[in-house]
């Protein structure tokens, strides 16, 4: 058994992570509360911010379930019914990870603009996507596409098919097997993926900047609201938004940590 890492290494790592990560986080809250609690609360009821908050929620409520269903379905397909097509799919789904948010926005704008490949037929039916709520939804789906399947696929692969086959021999049909065996064996990995998806969608900036039009009270998400505030020299309002999102991020971290902990317990690894 090897020795523990030296104290020096431990301190070095703590300083590094502390300075890089903890410090900015603490600073955010300090700034948001710098004018006192009542000012903070007042700022929270700012019209633009509330509208932005509501828009962000409305986007997440649609985009997250879409990607979760897609992610779960694709994971099952790739692992349980592999084929050349599914292998190609597997690679393609990871594409969004390599694409800059600005390029995401550009690509959606090109495709869905009035004269775009998709925009033109949609416009013929009277449907406009660009600079609306739906553009933000599509952009959110794009950037978070692989997040669920990347967590679920490795786990499903290692869990194997024997449990599902046993359930078959015991008389269970496909839906029952999925709900009682498959889903339960990947619960925490799926939770991890879903949480990452929510965090990504709520926090998307670059892509939304391009496709939403940034119209105040209409298509201004919370992230846009924050940057607008800084651009308009109302940084305090911006910091209130920042602290709101940071709180959400901390919540996300807690859930991620819990999910990771439960997954490791499952495998018998003592934390």
């Amino acid at each position: 058994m090897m020795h523990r890492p030296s104290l020096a290494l431990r301190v070095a790592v703590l300083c590094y992570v502390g300075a890089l990560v903890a410090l900015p986080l603490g600073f955010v809250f300090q700034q948001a509360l710098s004018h006192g609690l009542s000012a903070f609360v007042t700022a929270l009821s700012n019209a633009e911010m509330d509208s932005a908050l509501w828009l962000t929620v409305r986007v997440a409520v649609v985009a997250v379930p879409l990607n979760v269903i897609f992610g779960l379905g694709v994971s099952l397909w790739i692992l349980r019914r592999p084929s050349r097509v599914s292998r190609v799919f597997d690679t393609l789904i990871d594409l969004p990870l390599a694409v800059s948010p600005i390029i995401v926005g550009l690509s959606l704008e090109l495709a869905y603009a009035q004269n775009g490949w998709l925009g033109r037929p949609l416009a013929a039916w009277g449907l406009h996507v660009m600079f609306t709520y739906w553009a933000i939804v599509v952009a959110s789906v794009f950037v978070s596409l692989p997040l669920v399947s990347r967590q679920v696929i490795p786990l499903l692969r290692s869990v194997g098919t024997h449990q599902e086959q046993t359930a078959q021999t015991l008389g269970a049909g496909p839906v029952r097997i999925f709900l009682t065996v498959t889903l339960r064996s990947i619960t925490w990995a799926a939770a991890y993926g879903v949480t990452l998806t929510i965090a990504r969608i709520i926090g998307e900036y670059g892509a939304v900047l391009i496709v939403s039009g940034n119209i105040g009270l209409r298509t201004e998400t919370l992230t846009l609201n924050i940057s607008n505030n800084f651009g308009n020299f109302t940084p305090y309002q911006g910091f209130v938004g920042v602290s709101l999102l940071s709180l959400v991020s901390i919540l996300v971290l807690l859930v991620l940590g819990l999910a990771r902990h439960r997954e490791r317990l499952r495998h018998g690894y003592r934390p």
Partner: protein
Amino acid sequence: MRRYTSALTGHGARGLALTYLSLVVLIPIAAVVSHALGNGLGSFWSALTQPEALSAIRLTLWCAAGGSLLNMVAGTATAWVLVRDRFPGQSILNALIDLPFALPTVVAGVTFYTLYGPHSPFHVNVTGTWIGITIAITFVTLPFSVRAVQPLLETRTFTAEAAAATLGASSVRVFRTITLPALMPAILTGIGLAFARALGEYGSVVFISNNLPYRSEIASSYVYSLATSGQVDAASAVSLGLLVMALVVLMGINITAQRIGRGE
């Protein structure tokens, strides 16, 4: 087994998935490629080699490389301490690593601008410099390097290391000759993911970089300025260039990691 999966992933479902993927990702990316190459390779190349483009790409490549390499070392060390050490508050450290994943980029961006910019409480102003950009990139890519290595360390049994110790090797030597090579595929994967992410990073970098063309303008910022000024073809060209770079890096890292992994 076939019938079970058929029920859930029949032809209808597969078609649906393909349509979904096309509408959201494939067709838009195809549109970018089409606009980039639509006027011929010559025009594509000239858009990529504009002085401002080259300057932005060069700056982005340097900072991405710098941040990724720094995190290669720091990330591995962090994973090592997280897995092999025991101290109070360790789980908080573990949770903090995910913060750059969970935090919106714009939040990181404005925070770094406020911390290390003109109104910095430390009187440190790195706006418009490669230092500021690299700090932001290092923040954003930390989780990639740590989480790539951590699971491997957690499941490693260290029997090879024990054998080396019985043969007389010092701790440092054991780490350098036994552990590190075994971790290399994972470390490389971490760097690859970090680098690909850093190439396209926008929200966390754009504020502290100040976007001065030829000085501190990063590639994604340059694309944005092209796109919003109506030069979509040029924007697409540079985008395609960046995409290809990211994919080449990811594939290269993948292949190298596999080659090294096979030797284990």
